[in-house]
């Protein structure tokens, strides 16, 4: 298969400098995201997974190596990238509708048409009747869904999801994984999901890249050949085998292992 590459990191290294310490966050990292694919990145906590997302948005520049996103430099691609954070960060003084329109507003792309499209997305994802509410009136799962609509509202060509479910309770998390994978696959979005949860990485991803401990590089990549939604996948044969494989791969990295 020779699919179009949406984003790539080639031989990327990144060192953070702080007084009294120098942290090699990423070293010799090679990674490619194909168009229309949902790539999961899983790795030990603090291994530099989020750093990869920062590299892709140009918020961090590599010390060595090359980062290409949407056929250009990351900084130039930033307006076409949707970044979903760990916390929903909905602005409390804005209604859900106004929160969802924030990205369009900042980019100066808020027109009658884009507003209509954003409101349709809200309706489509079950938040239509909450458009006039304040974030505090919504549950954690609904808030994170609103944050996703805020990200989708400006039609990004690449979605970056930075542990977007880690602040949710387990049940909400399962439901939201299912919904978000559905939304991403239906919409034909290209996405990178960073998580420390192996089962989430498998349930959501088309492919799973396993990161090493710091300095991070890709230890191994696994294709997830399990059909169905994120929830269905969890119960299917092959899921637990893949889980064990990834678990072993991560375990060899632990200090003392």
């Amino acid at each position: 298969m020779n699919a179009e590459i949406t984003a790539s990191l080639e031989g990327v290294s990144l060192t953070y400098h702080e007084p009294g310490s120098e942290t090699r966050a990423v070293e010799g990292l090679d990674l490619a995201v194909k168009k229309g694919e949902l790539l999961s990145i899983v790795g030990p906590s603090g291994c530099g997974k989020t750093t990869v997302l920062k590299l892709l948005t140009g918020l961090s520049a590599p010390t060595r190596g090359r980062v290409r996103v949407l056929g250009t430099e990351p900084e130039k691609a930033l307006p076409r990238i949707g970044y979903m954070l760990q916390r929903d960060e909905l602005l409390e003084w804005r209604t859900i509708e106004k929160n969802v329109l924030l990205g369009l507003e900042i980019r100066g792309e808020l027109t009658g048409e884009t507003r209509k499209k954003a409101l349709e997305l809200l309706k489509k994802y079950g938040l239509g009747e909450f458009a006039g509410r304040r974030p505090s009136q919504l549950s954690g799962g609904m808030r994170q869904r609103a944050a996703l609509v805020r990200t989708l509202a400006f039609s990004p060509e690449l979605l970056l999801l930075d542990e977007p479910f880690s602040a949710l309770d387990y049940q909400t998390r399962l439901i939201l994984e299912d919904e978000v994978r559905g939304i991403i696959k239906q919409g034909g979005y290209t996405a990178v999901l960073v998580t420390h949860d192996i089962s989430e990485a498998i349930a959501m991803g088309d492919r799973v890249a396993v990161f090493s401990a710091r300095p991070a590089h890709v230890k191994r990549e696994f294709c997830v050949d399990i059909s169905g939604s994120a929830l269905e996948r969890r119960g299917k044969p092959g899921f637990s085998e893949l889980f064990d494989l990834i678990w072993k791969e991560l375990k060899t990295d632990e200090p003392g292992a």
Partner: protein
Amino acid sequence: MSPEHREYLKKLKRRGLFIHASRIGLLLLAALLWELAGRVGAVDPFIVSSPTRVVKTLVSLARAGELLPHIFATFAECTAGFLLGTAAGVLAAVLLWFCPILERVLDPYLVVLNALPKIALGPILIVWVGAGAEAIIVMALLVSTVVTVMQVLAGFLENGRDKGQLMRSLGATRMQTFSKAVLPASVPAIMSALKISVGMSWVGVIVGEYLVSKRGLGYLIVYGGQVFKLDLVMASIAVLCALAAVMYYAVAAVEAMASKKF
């Protein structure tokens, strides 16, 4: 509404009434004890005054047409100092937020300015702006500005950290980050800074009046002390208490309105 809930609301209301009644009761009790202590000769009313003497003093001041001008002078100076001081403080905080380097450089100066008793600058102020209302307003401004800068800047910095990541990920400029996220998120911090600085302005005004004034409540207090008219001192302090409370509650009301929006 269930009977239990109605009962609960009733209880809540009863408790609220009890607290209000206790507050007023406490004030009346203190006044009564004060009055009685003087009447039975436990204390000398000439030294500690008494509620009736305070009221008499206020009435005679009012009759002579002196009370209102004094109150107005102090109130106007305080309001001017408070408004100018907070405006300058908020503007300075905005400037410092936009220039992180400047913020780092000026940080120790702010700390020293905050620690410095502004009263020490009184004589300089008199020389620079004259021994009049201007010196008093500048004193109130000085006392309230530094606190405002520190409080508001702390709010900006904290909200900048929290909301900055989101705004950067949406591609916002620093200006947009400020106007759409940091400033609205800091409204509660600004409001609580206002509540502190309104009290600070009163300190500045009274100290200013001690130093230079020929009128105002601070002047009445100093004058009363000098000529041993403790009734006048107590009466002025009572009026001051009432004024300060009114202004504080006015700011608190603005805060309540703002917190509904933000």
